[in-house]
């Protein structure tokens, strides 16, 4: 492989990284909002969330990416492949994150809520000041685990033409007729990102253990 090939791989890696970051940046808060709708038990909305989570966790990312890219234009939403990729990743990861947040919410100690209410705090206030920070710390290991899964599933967006780290290997192979070297390098790069996330997750798990209520 030439230096130019390595450059392409780096570009592909960068594409994977920024798309993943956007999806994480959108998917984590979206999961929180959806989980709150779910636990609030609003009549129609919470059922929709249940449906969304069930479907979202069952649908392969690749299928979802293809579906969005091909179907949205029919409804007048003209979407380029990068946006479709980010959207697919976001919707997918949000469905898992919803469950992570919901679990953190439902396992939150009632005793602390009672103490907050006894001091006259409103629901909005104690949610923001008491529950949310702790839910955040408790959820971090699972959220980071989900980020790891997101990066591992991200090659799915290559199928709609996004030139991510995986698709780049196809391009290089198309020129050099040697598919294996770029795949090996790409594999090593993926392992590098993911091992960073895994290390982060282990660190967060140890920290969560220490502060467990």
């Amino acid at each position, binding site marked *: 492989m030439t230096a130019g090939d390595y450059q392409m791989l780096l570009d592909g890696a960068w594409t994977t990284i920024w798309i993943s970051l956007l999806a994480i940046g959108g998917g984590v808060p979206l999961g929180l909002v959806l989980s709150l709708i779910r636990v609030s038990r609003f009549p129609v909305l919470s059922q929709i969330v249940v449906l969304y989570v*069930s*479907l979202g*966790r*069952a*649908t*392969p*990312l*690749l*299928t*979802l990416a*293809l*579906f969005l890219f*091909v*179907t949205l*234009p*029919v409804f007048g939403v003209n979407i380029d492949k990068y946006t479709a990729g980010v959207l697919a990743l976001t919707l997918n990861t949000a469905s898992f994150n919803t469950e992570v947040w919901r679990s953190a919410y439902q396992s939150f100690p009632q005793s602390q809520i009672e103490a907050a209410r006894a001091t006259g705090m409103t629901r909005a206030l104690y949610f923001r000041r008491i529950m949310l920070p702790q839910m955040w710390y408790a959820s971090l290991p699972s959220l980071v685990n989900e980020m790891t899964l997101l*990066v*591992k*599933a*991200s*090659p*799915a967006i*290559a*199928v709609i033409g996004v030139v991510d780290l*995986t698709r780049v*290997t196809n391009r290089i*192979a198309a020129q050099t007729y040697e*598919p*294996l070297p770029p*795949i*090996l390098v*790409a*594999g090593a790069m*993926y*392992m590098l990102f*993911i*091992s960073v996330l*895994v290390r982060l997750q282990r660190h967060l798990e140890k920290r969560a253990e220490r502060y467990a209520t």
Partner: protein
Amino acid sequence: MTDLEIVLNEWPRLASGFANTLLLFGISALGAFVLGALMLGAFRSRSKIVRVALGYFVDGMRMLPFLIFAYLLYYGLPTFGVRLDAWTVGLLGLTIYHCAYVAEILRGAWDQLPVGQTESAQAHGYHGFRLMRRIVLPQLVLNSAPVLGNQLIYMLKDTSFLMIITVKELTYAASSIQSMYFVPLEPFLIAIALYWAISLLIEGFVAVVHRSAKERGLGRV
């Protein structure tokens, strides 16, 4: 002809894709569980080489995207003179990749199993394979039913990646109908509904196993 009629006309294509997905999922899931369970004893092997090699294998699979591993097999095996069709490569990839995850899940459960379980079995004359199969493994599976169930769903979803190495599974079928007839919505809706149905079945199965575990006082909360 309406879009839906077109798609329904193509039902053999969808059925064939779905059948492939189910076969690939079913066989690889079985294989991954058997392999993962067989590998379990090696985690506590007396040979350091075995333990280290196993560690590298499991960590490697858990840090690699499935598609990259499938690519490695698909493009790499021929260089070793192994010429397999895409379907077999896909099956192999799914099985080997996921057996590492199953082994790791079972290993985690094993670390949490009270040592008295193994000791009382040993005191009654159990050892080796029989000890694992009769006494240890059933408890590990019952204890980690929900986590294993999640892994099954990942195995189902990973089958879709195989369309990229030309395996004609469900997503490929939906995509090809869409591109042939320009019917964007229906094929994918049907495909997604089918994936959903299977994962609901998996979750139902896991619920049954989990209930069986709870009856016996097993199952991590």
